[in-house]
């Protein structure tokens, strides 16, 4: 009797099923979706996803700070899961769906989550903000009604040297409430 199966579903980070291979020093073509748009680009296999987004696609939202998974400034969603893009190879994102902070707003209209960061004063210098927003987005997409502890846990991998975190917590909590209200309407 099987009573437990892999929870991370087909689109989960653990299952990325497109075959791809490359020779050393040779370039390889990756095919993925970034912020809803299909992107086909030639890269080198040793390129990081973070550098692919910033240098190739000129999406400067994800930031490089520690480069080692410690600070969360480079967080993006990969197939719906928050990941630190400094620890992912661009080639690993072949076939994946990537969402960066640039994909949150509709044109100039900020999303509810972004609005709450503004309303709650959840940023000062703003360097950590794209990563914070993406960790929060990853949480709320999977869990629209998180407990306080779940919010803290989901955001624990994002460091901020300015705000003291309380306003960030409030922004996520309030955004969750507003998103739920909007859905009920």
């Amino acid at each position, binding site marked *: *009797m*099987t*009573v*437990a*199966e*892999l*929870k*991370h579903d087909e689109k*989960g*980070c*653990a*299952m*990325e*099923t*497109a*075959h*791809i*291979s*490359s*020779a*050393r*020093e*040779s370039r*390889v073509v990756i095919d993925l979706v970034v912020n809803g748009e299909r992107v086909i680009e030639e890269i*080198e*296999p*040793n390129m*990081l996803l973070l550098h692919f987004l910033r240098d190739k696609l000129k999406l400067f939202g994800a930031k490089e700070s520690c*480069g*080692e*998974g*410690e600070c*969360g400034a480079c*967080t993006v969603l990969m197939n719906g*899961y*928050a*990941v*630190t893009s*400094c*620890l*992912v*190879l661009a*080639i*690993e994102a*072949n076939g994946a769906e990537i969402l960066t902070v640039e994909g949150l707003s509709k044109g100039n209209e900020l999303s509810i989550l972004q609005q709450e960061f503004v309303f709650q004063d959840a940023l000062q210098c703003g360097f950590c903000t794209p990563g914070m927003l993406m*960790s929060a987005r*990853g*949480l709320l997409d999977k869990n629209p009604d998180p407990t306080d502890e779940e919010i803290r*846990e*989901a*955001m*624990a*991998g*994002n460091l901020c040297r300015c705000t003291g975190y309380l306003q960030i917590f409030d922004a996520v909590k309030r955004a969750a409430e507003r998103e739920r209200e909007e859905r009920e309407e």
Partner: protein
Amino acid sequence: MLSQFDYVKPLVLDEALAALAKEDDSYVLAGGTDLLIMLRHNLINARHIIDIKGIPELNELCFIENEGLTIGANVVVNALVDSELVKNKYKALHDAASCLASFQLRNRATLVGNICNASPGADLPPALLIYDAVVKIASVDGVREVPLVEFFTGVKKTVLSDEELVISVFLPDPGENDSSCYMRQTRLKGHDLSTVGVACRLDGEGKVSVAIGAVATTPLRLTALEAEINQRGISEETILWASNAINDHIKPISDVRASEAYRRHMASVLLKRCLVTLTGKEV
């Protein structure tokens, strides 16, 4: 910028095993949370990267009653945190998974990668050791099984040869009335390995098992200590005795994370806390 390598993502296991056997300087890539850091610091000379995440048979996370739990090489740590079964049957593993790194890292990091990396301070090995975990290993020559207690051979060293790949880790069904917990001391939650991590189990027959990380070159299962605890029988006195005696069974060092003396002290404190939690005794 990382040094150059080629990359292959096989969709079947045999292809991955053939690739590993073919070239020297080949490295398996799972979540990459250790491997990419080693590449970044040029600690390894990886010429060939074999990404195993396209191989569906390594995705297995499956429990069979009276047999046990199989955790495939692609199962990420957050899948263990999300699993009610792991929480109910293997509480120490759930505790350890929940405190590993940050949420983003747990979405990528695999349990199998955590043991293959063989860091003495890794959080998952102690929780696996108290459940008599067995590691299933494959190469072009076939499959072998190695108990996790024999898997670690030193700091960042395991019994794996260059041509071998871990398919899964198996934990026997602990049965009814089994309880366990994992407690760790760390400098900073979400950003550091443990300074000391202790896993304890009280099985259905009242027997205690203890394993500990970050106090020797490998994670340790403390069988001699367990035997004496079980011989004395669990009581307030035994708990106090064991929390001192644990120091005869560990060889911690002083490093950036803590001094030897602090590690010894915390090993004692954490063992006491674990045993108090599991037995309900007051000490």
